């Protein structure tokens, strides 16, 4: 079943700037879909329309079968939103801000439960203005989870978090996914998408330039073999890069190229020191896409 369906979404700002140009994607129930892209690629502009904060200039959006802008009252009780920058009155305490939010919801979790999910229990009586950036992000996540959402929107949820909090947040998101929650994530951290997302789309200048599972996106980009070449012997493969004594070979068929290289080394009894072979990472694919599109 499809939880989110986006078709030909275009968003234009009042100045005429087209931030999103004909974006289409589907998010299935219970999966995590990640939107990646450079700054200004249009991720947040896209997500805000899917959340129902504004109307698309063209195209259609459906969340749980409803138009999130026109049928806001039907959609909101079933979704949780974590904006890129959360807004809390600075003079409220963590508990007060959470209670306020709970009071606006149809069937909220207990406030203590929400705060303990994000490890903020010990900060419950602290004013929001005294929280660190990472703690504020976690409070924002707690509010997004407060209404037990079926669909969760996370706009850069781990920005400003220390590595431990980031891991904890990932574990929490994984647990939610196991419970069947659908997640639409935007992130700058490619390893975050690689670790959590079932499928992803890479945006560049308002368009989706690659879409699929992590391996589908990555497989389109060449794998890489690098080593320190033995002196004085011609290599059996085409070297694509050479830097500080190491050579790098890029190939679309890692297994075949590696086999040729290793057989050659065996037959000629040469050592390929520091040998390293790997498929393209999401980061490499991402950088290549950004470069191609530029």
């Amino acid at each position, binding site marked *: 079943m499809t939880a989110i369906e986006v078709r030909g979404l275009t968003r234009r700002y009042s100045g005429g700037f087209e931030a999103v140009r004909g974006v289409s994607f589907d998010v299935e129930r219970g999966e995590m879909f990640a939107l990646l892209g450079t700054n200004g690629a249009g991720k947040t502009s896209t997500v805000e329309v899917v959340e129902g904060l504004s109307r698309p200039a063209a195209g259609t959006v459906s969340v749980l079968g409803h138009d999130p802008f026109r049928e806001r*009252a039907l959609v909101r009780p079933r979704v949780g939103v974590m904006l890129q920058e959360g807004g*809390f009155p600075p003079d409220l305490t963590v508990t007060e801000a959470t*209670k*306020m939010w709970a*009071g606006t919801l149809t069937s909220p979790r207990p406030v203590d439960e929400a705060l303990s999910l994000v490890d903020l229990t010990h900060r419950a009586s602290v004013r929001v203005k005294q929280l660190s950036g990472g703690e504020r992000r976690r409070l924002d996540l707690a509010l997004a989870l407060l209404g037990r959402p079926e669909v969760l929107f996370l706009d850069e949820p781990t920005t400003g978090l220390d590595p431990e909090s980031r891991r904890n947040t990932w574990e929490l998101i994984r647990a939610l996914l196991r419970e069947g929650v659908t997640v639409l994530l935007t992130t700058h951290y490619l390893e975050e998408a690689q670790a959590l997302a079932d499928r992803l789309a890479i945006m560049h200048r308002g368009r989706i330039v690659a879409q699929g599972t992590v391996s589908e996106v990555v497989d389109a980009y060449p794998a890489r073999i690098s080593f320190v070449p033995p002196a004085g012997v011609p290599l059996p493969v085409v070297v694509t890069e050479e830097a500080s004594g190491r050579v790098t070979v890029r190939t679309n068929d890692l297994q075949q190229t590696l086999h040729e290289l290793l057989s050659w080394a065996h037959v000629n009894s040469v050592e390929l020191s520091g040998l390293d072979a790997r498929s393209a990472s999401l980061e490499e694919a991402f950088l290549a896409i950004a470069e191609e599109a530029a």
Partner: protein
Amino acid sequence: MRAVAVGQAELKLFWRNRTALFNSLLLPALLVPALMAADGDGVPLIVGLTGFVLLMAVYYNLVTTFVARREELVLKRLRVGELTDPEILLGASLPSVAVALVQMVLFTVIVGVITGVAVPSRPWFLLVGVAGGVVVFVLLAAASSAFTRTVEMAQVTSLPVLVACVLGSGVMIPLSVMPDGVASVLRLLPLTPVLDLMRAGWADGPVLRPLIVLAVWIGLGTYAVRRWFRWDPRR
């Protein structure tokens, strides 16, 4: 009612905000001598104080509240929740309105007892005037906030409404001393019909015209809010 949750949070913030406390609680009380100098009788004093409470505790206080919550991204956050847009505005307005109503009742009772004002003969006009005044100034505050970049700028952007109403609505200077033409124009200000209706609670006076002017302001205010109110910071 879901908006009450926002109202309760706003009330906490109100008690923690010294400027807001001063502007809404102390300022109207400090004006008593000035108002008494204009007209020391009980009814004009009650009417004038109510006008100031509407301007300071409701209008000015809410301009700063709406701007502060918008710039803190609180309004944007509330908009991704379950509340409707009118519920968000209502919730944010509740404490200011509640504080204003308490002040009006206190002033009326205190001034009334001290000066021996009679019980209003037509109390419903009084109530309609106050209720309409609250609605108009909440709407005008929301509309003014759209043209206000920062909380500090609210001191400037709220001036046109404040000055026009203080000088032109018969609070400090009775409209009866103005030339007829000027007085008829001043009767179109948003505060004038509120005060006229309040006076009509105690004494016979025209009510149809103030009712119409008040209704027109509510219409204009609603239109302005729908057209211009900003939920996102101005960047």
